[in-house]
């Protein structure tokens, strides 16, 4: 029990990171029913965008450079995400559903290979700046890493902004309308193509924030970092109920806490020493997904689709 607070806080930070990425999956799915399997690579290019800004600002303290690094990451991720929508997915909007799915996988590989081939020294891991200084000691059994502070502030701010945007603004309401009934949204005068671009853009921006958090946390980024992050975030989106933005964040947090708990506790269960620790965390994360989907196929906050004619 001594480890519980630390496990929960670390899980929350990890989960908030998953949740931010998961929102990109869930918003796009909610509007065009496409699983954008290249979304992990949107995170990855955001990380490299932020790193590029860092390299342009030698000697600038990380705290001062961070806003510009986030901005750089956001610009790159949004540009790549919206370009993917415009040139890869939009031409396939009325194609059989397998076509955009395969396109997404192809795009994912292409983006990885482009960064691998053309970003300087990206064939191996690249160092990402990290905060120096001690963790904040909150209690004798609870300390807070500086990079955890970043994601624990950034993720709620992003969620709050998105929540206000979708419910209070005219464009946000148009976005909800488009997700619920795209043809009828057009009859209201809503340019649904622009709403779709916006969904990709918001997902891209959140992905870049998550990318910076991941870089700060690990201290390294790589061309293939988007694969497992994307898979985890997709799991979080499904866990929370795909199409629901709050579900995506909840799914992320549940997944993050499950992961850290599995690292801390499973090795203490008699007979399961071999199945605990960091090496097995992904197994437990995906096992949780399977379990939840067996009980609630629509995810934690998902609604069963029941449209009244």
């Amino acid at each position, binding site marked *: 029990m001594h480890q519980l607070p630390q496990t929960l806080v670390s899980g929350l930070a990890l989960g908030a990171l998953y949740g931010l990425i998961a929102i990109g999956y869930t918003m796009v799915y909610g509007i065009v029913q496409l699983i954008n399997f290249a979304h992990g690579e949107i995170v990855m290019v955001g990380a490299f965008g932020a790193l590029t800004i860092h390299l342009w600002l030698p000697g600038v303290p990380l705290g001062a450079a961070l806003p510009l690094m986030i901005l750089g990451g956001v610009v790159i991720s949004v540009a790549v995400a919206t370009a993917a929508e415009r040139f890869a997915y939009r031409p396939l909007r009325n194609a059989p559903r397998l076509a955009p799915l395969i396109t997404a996988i192809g795009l994912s590989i292409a983006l990885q290979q482009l960064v691998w081939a053309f970003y300087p020294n990206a064939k191996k891991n690249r160092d990402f700046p990290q905060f120096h200084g001690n963790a904040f000691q909150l209690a004798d059994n609870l300390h807070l890493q500086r990079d955890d502070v970043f994601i624990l502030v950034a993720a709620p701010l992003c969620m709050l902004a998105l929540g206000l945007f979708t419910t209070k603004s005219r464009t946000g*309401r148009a976005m909800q309308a488009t997700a619920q009934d795209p*043809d009828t949204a057009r009859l*209201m005068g809503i340019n649904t193509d622009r709403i779709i671009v916006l969904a990709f853009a918001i997902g891209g921006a959140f992905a870049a924030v998550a990318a910076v958090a991941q870089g700060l946390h690990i201290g390294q980024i790589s061309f293939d970092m988007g694969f497992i992050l994307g898979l985890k975030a997709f799991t979080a989106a499904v866990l929370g109920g795909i199409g629901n933005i709050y579900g995506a964040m909840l799914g992320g947090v549940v997944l993050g806490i499950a992961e850290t708990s599995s690292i801390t506790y499973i090795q203490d269960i008699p007979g399961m020493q071999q199945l605990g620790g960091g090496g097995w965390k992904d197994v437990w994360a995906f096992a949780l997904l399977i379990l939840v989907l067996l009980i609630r196929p629509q995810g934690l906050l998902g609604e069963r689709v029941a449209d009244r004619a």
Partner: protein
Amino acid sequence: MTAPLLEVHDLRIAYGKIEAVKGITFTVHPGQVVTLIGTNGAGKTTTLRTLSGLHPPLSGTIRFNGTSLRGIPAHRIVALGLAHSPEGRHIFPRLTIAENLQLGAFLRKDSDGIRRDTERAYELFPILGERAQQPAGTLSGGEQQMLAMGRALMSRPKLLMLDEPSMGLSPIMMQKIMATIAELKATGTTILLVEQNAQAALTLADQGHVMETGRIVLSGTGAELLHDESVRKAYLGED
């Protein structure tokens, strides 16, 4: 007679290789109620979807208020003054009734006018006002139909297209909806009405067209069609 508000000439529409509408021609003049009646699959809904830009035509011309609608996307057509209350109502179920009405006025900038028209919608359909803050999905079928009509009116259309407003409703609710359409007609609203309830539609209509498998097979005033023997046999259930 004044210039027509809507002119449809030799309009043909296909879904894939299947031609659903095979060359129809009709006009709607300002202030008129024109109805398209006919059985399921006659092409009535397809025609409305093409007029509002949701489905591309194969050939033919559509002129609305003097402008050709060819190639204009759906979200711009509503700005020209053509509102469409679709078949099956298609309200936004998880938005509130008030939000649904606001979306009907999506392109308008005059917040005072929008507020007045919202009040007017609540006068026309008091139940919508009483339940303004509830999700629209909680309304009954007939109430959803009222919301769909109210929402379409919120764009202040020059032409209101109603697709099957009485579909699936109880007789009492159907009467209510038809009475509302009559009320709208009395205030000078121009309406293109697609209905399976031919009796009710023809009673209201200035002009009616009978569609069968993609073609207009008979046209006339509402009264003429109402008394036409073949119409009575085919659509009014008489032997």
